[in-house]
C-alpha cells in the first residue's frame, strides 16, 4: 500500500524501531528561543551533557523582545534576564544565535524558512507549538516541551508515539478577498479545537496547491489550533522556487539531488488517510472568531451565535463563558462589533505578503479615530523588505504604528498588550482569554480583514470599504 507524505518523512528518520517502544526519530533541525530553552540547558549542565549537533541547532530571540527602543536596555528585568540567559547558553554550548539587533533576528518560524533552513522532507522541532508552520515545505514539524528540547539538544533524536493521518482537501478557487487565514479558521471551526488530536494533517487540493509559500505557512501554522500534531503540504515547484538561492538551500549537485528526493515525497495515489475532510473553496468567505478558542469562529457576514443553539452541553457552556468574556450579545451582526485595536504580525501573518496585503488596503486611507494599530514584521528581513517597498510609510501615513520585529502582541510577553476590556482584531493565532493582555478581547482575522477593520473601526472586510481613496500613495 502507498504511503502518505507524513509517513514517508517519518520512515526516513527512524533511528530505532523496537516492539513496545515508541520510534526514535532523528531531528534535522532544532530551533530555539528564549522562553522554552533555559530549563533545558540547565538540565544539560546538571547532567554534564553537551549539545550533540550544534550544526543542526539555531536560536533567535522573539517572544520577549521589545518592538520599540530596541537600542536601549530592556526595561523589564525579568525579560532581560531571560534573553541574557539564552545568549549565555548559546555561547557556552556553541549554538548560533540571532539576538535583538541582528539582521537575522525575528520570530523563529519566520527566520527558519527565510534562511532556507526549513526544507522538504525534514524533521523540524522547536519548543513552540507553532512549529507546525514549517510543514508548509513538506517537513514534519512540531512543537515540543522543554523536556523534549533538552532531549533533542542531548541526542538530536526524540522518541515519538505514532500518529494518525488526516487529509484536509480544499478544491476549487478561493473567492476574491478570501485568504489562507480564512481557510484555516474555517477548517478549525469545522473540525474543532480537538478535531486534529493525534493526527498529522495534510492539506491538499487545488486551492492549497495554488497558495504561495507564505500562505501555506499561515495554513500549517494554525494546525495546532485544531489540536493536530502537525500540518503538512506536499512540496512542489512553488516550494522549490521559494527555496532556491536562499542562504542555506542546497547548491549545485546537492540542489539537484535534493529536488529529486523532494519530488518523491508526495502522498502516493493509493495511500489511505485515517480521516478525510473535504472543503469547497468557493464556499469560503472572510472568517472571524467571536469566542475564546480558535474553533469559535464564523463567517464575517454572520452574527454572534446564541449559545442555546449549541446541542453539545459542554460547547454551550463554553460559548456562554466566551460571550461573557468577549462582551458580546447573541444576534449582533459581527460587522457591527466595534474594535479598539488592530494587530498585524506574528508567525501566522507577519511575513512580507501579509504586510503587502494590509498596506494595499491602507494605502491612501486613515485608520479610524481613537483606534490604535500595531504593525509588527515577523523578522528584521521582512521589515527591511517592507521598508524597501515603502510599506512602512503607508502604515504610518494611515496612522498605524510601525514596530520592530518579534512576537509582540500575539502573546503580550513584551510591553505590547491590550488593556482590560480592549477589543482587538488580530492576525495572530490565539484568541484565548487574556492572551494579548489581561482582560483583552481578541478576534482572529486575516491581514486584509485587519486592515479594513482598522479603517472602519468595526469588524469589516475590504469589500466593505466603499470610500474613494483620497491620495495615491
Amino acid at each position, binding site marked *: 500500500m502507498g504511503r502518505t507524505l507524513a509517513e514517508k518523512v517519518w520512515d526516513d528518520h527512524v533511528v530505532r524501531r523496537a516492539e513496545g517502544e515508541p520510534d526514535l526519530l532523528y531531528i534535522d533541525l532544532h530551533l530555539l528561543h528564549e522562553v522554552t530553552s533555559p*530549563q533545558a540547558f540547565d538540565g544539560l549542565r546538571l547532567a554534564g551533557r553537551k549539545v550533540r549537533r550544534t*550544526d*543542526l541547532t539555531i536560536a533567535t530571540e522573539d517572544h520577549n523582545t521589545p518592538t520599540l527602543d530596541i537600542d536601549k536596555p530592556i526595561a523589564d528585568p525579568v525579560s532581560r534576564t531571560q534573553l541574557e540567559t539564552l545568549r549565555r547558553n548559546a555561547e557556552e554550548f556553541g549554538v*548560533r544565535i540571532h539576538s535583538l539587533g541582528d539582521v537575522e533576528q525575528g520570530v523563529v518560524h519566520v527566520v527558519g524558512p527565510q534562511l532556507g533552513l526549513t526544507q522538504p522532507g525534514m524533521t523540524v522541532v522547536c*519548543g513552540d507549538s507553532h512549529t507546525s508552520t514549517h510543514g508548509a515545505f513538506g517537513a514534519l514539524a512540531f512543537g515540543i516541551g522543554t523536556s523534549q528540547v533538552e532531549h533533542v539538544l542531548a541526542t538530536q533524536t526524540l522518541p515519538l508515539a505514532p500518529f494518525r493521518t488526516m487529509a484536509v482537501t480544499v478544491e476549487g478557487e478561493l473567492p476574491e478577498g478570501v485568504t489562507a487565514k480564512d481557510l484555516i479558521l474555517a477548517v478549525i471551526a469545522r473540525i474543532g479545537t480537538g478535531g486534529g*488530536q493525534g493526527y498529522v494533517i495534510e492539506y491538499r487540493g487545488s486551492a492549497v496547491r495554488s497558495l504561495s509559500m507564505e500562505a501555506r505557512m499561515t495554513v500549517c501554522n494554525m494546525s495546532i489550533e485544531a489540536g493536530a500534531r502537525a500540518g503538512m503540504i506536499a512540496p512542489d515547484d512553488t516550494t522549490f522556487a521559494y527555496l532556491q538561492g536562499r542562504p542555506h538551500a542546497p547548491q549545485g549537485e546537492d540542489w539537484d*539531488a535534493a529536488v529529486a528526493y523532494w519530488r518523491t515525497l508526495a502522498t502516493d495515489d493509493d495511500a489511505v488517510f485515517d480521516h478525510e475532510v473535504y472543503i469547497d473553496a468557493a464556499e469560503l468567505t472572510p472568517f472571524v472568531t467571536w469566542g475564546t478558542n480558535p474553533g469559535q469562529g464564523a463567517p464575517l457576514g454572520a452574527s454572534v451565535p446564541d449559545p442555546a443553539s449549541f446541542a453539545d452541553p459542554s460547547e454551550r457552556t463554553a460559548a456562554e463563558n466566551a460571550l461573557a468574556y468577549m462582551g458580546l450579545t447573541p444576534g449582533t451582526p459581527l460587522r457591527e462589533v466595534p474594535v479598539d485595536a488592530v494587530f498585524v504580525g506574528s508567525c501566522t501573518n507577519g511575513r512580507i505578503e501579509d504586510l503587502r496585503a494590509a498596506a494595499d488596503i491602507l494605502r491612501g486611507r486613515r485608520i479610524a479615530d481613537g483606534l490604535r494599530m500595531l504593525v509588527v514584521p515577523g523578522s528584521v528581513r521582512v521589515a527591511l523588505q517592507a521598508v524597501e517597498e515603502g510599506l512602512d510609510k503607508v502604515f504610518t501615513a494611515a496612522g498605524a504604528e510601525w514596530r520592530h520585529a518579534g512576537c509582540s502582541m500575539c502573546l503580550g510577553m513584551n510591553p505590547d498588550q491590550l488593556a482590560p476590556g480592549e477589543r482587538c482584531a488580530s492576525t495572530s493565532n490565539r484568541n484565548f*482569554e487574556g492572551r494579548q493582555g489581561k482582560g483583552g478581547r481578541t478576534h482572529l482575522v486575516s491581514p486584509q480583514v485587519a486592515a479594513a477593520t482598522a479603517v472602519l473601526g468595526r469588524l469589516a472586510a475590504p469589500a466593505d470599504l466603499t470610500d474613494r481613496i483620497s491620495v495615491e500613495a
Partner: protein
Amino acid sequence: MEKFTAHTGRAVPLRRSNVDTDQIIPAHWLKKVTRTGFEDGLFEAWRKDPEFVLNRPERQGASVLVAGPEFGTGSSREHAVWALQNYGFRAVVSSRFADIFRGNSLKNGLLTVILPQETVERLWELTEADPAAEVTVDLEAREVRAEGITAPFELDENARWRLLNGLDDISLTLRHEDGITDFEAGRPSFKPRTLPVA
C-alpha cells in the same frame, strides 16, 4: 523524574472545557528561567474570583484535578505542567487532553488520565457533593477509584513503565547512541546545517 505508582487525594472539580495553557499559566510567568515557583501563576486570572473552585477552603490541599474535555490546548509551554505540580497536583483527569500537554505531563511525572466523559461527570458529582471524597489514581492497576466508582484507564506500556520507575528519557535514548551515530553517517549531504554561510 519522580516515580508515580499510585496516588490518593482529594479532588478539584473543574467544570470547564478547552482549558488552554494560557489559562493554566499566563505568558508573563514564562519569563522565569527555573522549573519551580509557578504555583501562584496557576489559573491566575480565574483565581482573582474568590468563588473559583481552587480558592474554596474545602479544596485546599487537593491533589487530583478533574477537568473538562480538551484540557491543555494551545501553547507547548511545559510551564503549564510545572505550575500544576508546583501547586500540588499529582494527577489530572479529563476525557481529552491536547497532545503536547499530555506528552509534557508524562515526562514530568504528572499523571494525565483519560476517562470517558460520563465517568468525569460522575467524579464531578461525587467530589462536588463531598469535597472530602478521596480519589485514587492507581497506575499499577491502571485504575481510578473513588466511592462507587472504579474506572480502568489506558496508558501505553512504555510510558507506564517509565513513570512507574521514574526513568529519564535521555539516559534511555543514550543507550542507543551507536544507532544515532550510524544514522548520522547515512544522512544525505544536501541536508542543511545551521553553521553561518559566507
